[in-house]
């Protein structure tokens, strides 16, 4: 496998890529200039032709999502989701820190195409450098006439407002993000009616796009949607950034051809993560962030293609591949992931609020050698209450997918590494309970 000519990371090697000077000297804002020569409809059509899949997690085609705004309802808003926080995911921060103008240019192109009259760029609160780089970039871009009133002398007038979050994973869910942007607790809204394209920020049509998605637009408009779609597979087009972390020799963020590069290429390829560190063997890997069911040796030759991975029972999610070697304690890894969801549940829906906490409690007592064999059935029972049938894609009893996400590591680990759970329980100091498993009431 050879790495493609990079698209969105092509400026990462340039030292001052985050400044207007560095951006302009490497072809910056040519996509915007080109877009302004086209009609808004033509720009939208170009993005549709590119078949650009959303890079935030759900993988929905951006051009199609753009088409969901009800005609004639104004104003419409653009909200940029820069709240990257899915465990294992590391790419939007890089794009914001290293090439903020590319993102700004993408925002302007989207606003032009869809008649979005104000843009809110929501950056995760913990990312101080990204906030700083975007603030500097916006200040430069305003001064130079790229953003604000009459962009480059055209009729396009749009403000881009930089907004910081304040620490809450759930705000990455688009309706929770809108609540947060309205100054409230970041709890997801019930859909319907709250599909953002029709009922979004302040109840108005709103496009919520991920940072990486928008960062692709400048290239697409400059080079054509067909040019983008020529890369990758039929449905997973272009290139995409994947972070490969965990027990690999060379952890890193790699921009690879989407849809055709395989997990083996990216995990073992010498130009990518270079294989398992220390000459050890692969135990399992998570293909798309903490929410995704685990993959194993037999999945290595699958391409990083949305449809293929979905069909194989997991997802590419937010481009986060987490590799675990043979020495990994599957129970501890499972507990780590579940604890995350338990801690980040917003508490709005009962199956998630209660279910994730119980999963965490039961896993913790197994790890403290206080588990019982029935606990393994109890874990699956709790999973089934959060997501009936424990199927893929998960059935929902909650407003958003956070709860069902906690089911993924439990179901994966128990199906493949049940013996490891049993080994913990074999050392348990607690006698098996009689009859139906009882959920102990926590003291205090």
């Amino acid at each position, binding site marked *: 496998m050879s790495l493609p000519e990079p698209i969105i990371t092509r400026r990462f090697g340039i030292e001052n890529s985050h400044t207007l000077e560095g951006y302009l000297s490497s072809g910056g804002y040519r996509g915007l200039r080109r877009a302004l020569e086209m009609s808004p409809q033509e720009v939208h059509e170009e993005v549709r032709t590119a078949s650009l899949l959303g890079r935030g997690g759900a993988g929905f085609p951006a051009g199609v999502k753009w088409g969901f705004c009800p005609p004639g309802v104004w104003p419409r808003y653009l909200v940029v989701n820069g709240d990257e926080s899915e465990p294992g995911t590391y790419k939007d921060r890089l794009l914001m820190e290293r090439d903020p103008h590319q993102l700004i240019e993408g925002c302007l192109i989207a606003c032009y195409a869809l008649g979005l009259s104000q843009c809110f760029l929501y950056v995760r609160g913990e990312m101080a450098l990204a906030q700083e780089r975007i603030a500097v970039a916006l200040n430069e871009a305003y001064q130079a006439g790229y953003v604000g*009133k009459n962009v480059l002398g055209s009729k396009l007038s749009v*403000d881009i407002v930089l907004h910081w979050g304040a620490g809450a994973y759930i705000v990455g869910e688009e309706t929770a993000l809108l609540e947060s942007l309205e*100054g409230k607790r970041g709890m997801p809204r019930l859909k319907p009616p709250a599909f953002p394209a029709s009922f979004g920020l302040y109840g108005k049509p709103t496009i919520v796009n991920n940072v990486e998605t928008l960062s692709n637009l400048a290239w697409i408009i400059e080079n054509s949607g067909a040019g983008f779609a020529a890369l990758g597979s039929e449905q997973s087009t272009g290139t995409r950034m994947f972070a490969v972390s965990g027990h690999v020799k060379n952890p890193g963020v790699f921009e690879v051809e989407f849809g055709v590069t395989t997990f083996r290429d990216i995990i073992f390829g010498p130009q990518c993560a270079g294989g398992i560190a220390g000459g050890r063997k692969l135990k399992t890997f998570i293909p798309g962030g903490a929410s995704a069911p685990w993959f194993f040796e037999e999945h290595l030759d699958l391409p990083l293609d949305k449809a293929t991975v979905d069909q194989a029972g997991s997802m590419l999610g937010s481009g986060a591949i987490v590799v675990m070697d043979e020495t990994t304690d599957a129970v501890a890894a499972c507990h780590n992931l579940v604890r995350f969801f338990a801690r980040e549940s917003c508490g709005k829906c009962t199956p998630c609020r209660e279910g994730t906490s119980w999963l965490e409690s039961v896993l913790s007592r197994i790890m403290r050698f206080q588990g019982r064999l029935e606990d393994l059935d109890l874990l699956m029972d709790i999973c089934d209450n959060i997501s009936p049938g424990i199927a893929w894609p998960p059935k929902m009893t909650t407003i958003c997918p956070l709860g069902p996400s906690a089911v993924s590591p439990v179901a994966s680990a128990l199906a493949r590494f049940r013996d490891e759970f049993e080994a913990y329980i074999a050392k348990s100091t607690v006698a098996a309970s009689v009859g139906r498993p009882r959920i102990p009431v926590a003291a205090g």
Partner: protein
Amino acid sequence: MGYFTSDNAKLAEEIMARYPKVRSALIPLLHLAQEQGGYVTSEAMQEIAELVGATPAEVLGTLSFYEMFKPTDPGRYQINICHGISCFLCGSTELLHHAEERLGIPAGGSTADGLFSLEAVECIAACTEAPALQVNYRYFNRVAPELFDEVVESLASGELAEVPPHGVLARVRQHIPVERAAGPSSPEVSETPVWLES
């Protein structure tokens, strides 16, 4: 006399003017208060409530949802050790234990000298640089115990100037020049954007 200094009160006005609805400025104003005082005091909450037209309880309700807002003083440096899955696989548990021993406080605690608070936090998006930590939201990558000790010593002796006091995030703020501003787009005003008119 309000909570905000006169400079920050001006900044608050500028921030509020960007949003179609002033309540949207709530989180940015909480950040501004935390920047000014290192944490969000009840006086700050009271003033922000008045500014954005909410009750103090609503301000507290929003604030308490978000991990970064501290209603009590965390000290000068908030050390957040990531224990997300990638960092966990690469030794974050050992790093956290080391940090607890070195600082003499458990995760969730603060040192008596008012310098450090320590927390174990969820994924901070530095997964390929594990184990990672943040001090006042500035990253330190691939942190071995020795590096942790160095960082703590440099912070204590004031040598790490690139880490500002707790509460300060971006050191450059967005400023929209009046003559370049398109202005907020009110949800009450239904107008077809001019660039869509053929």
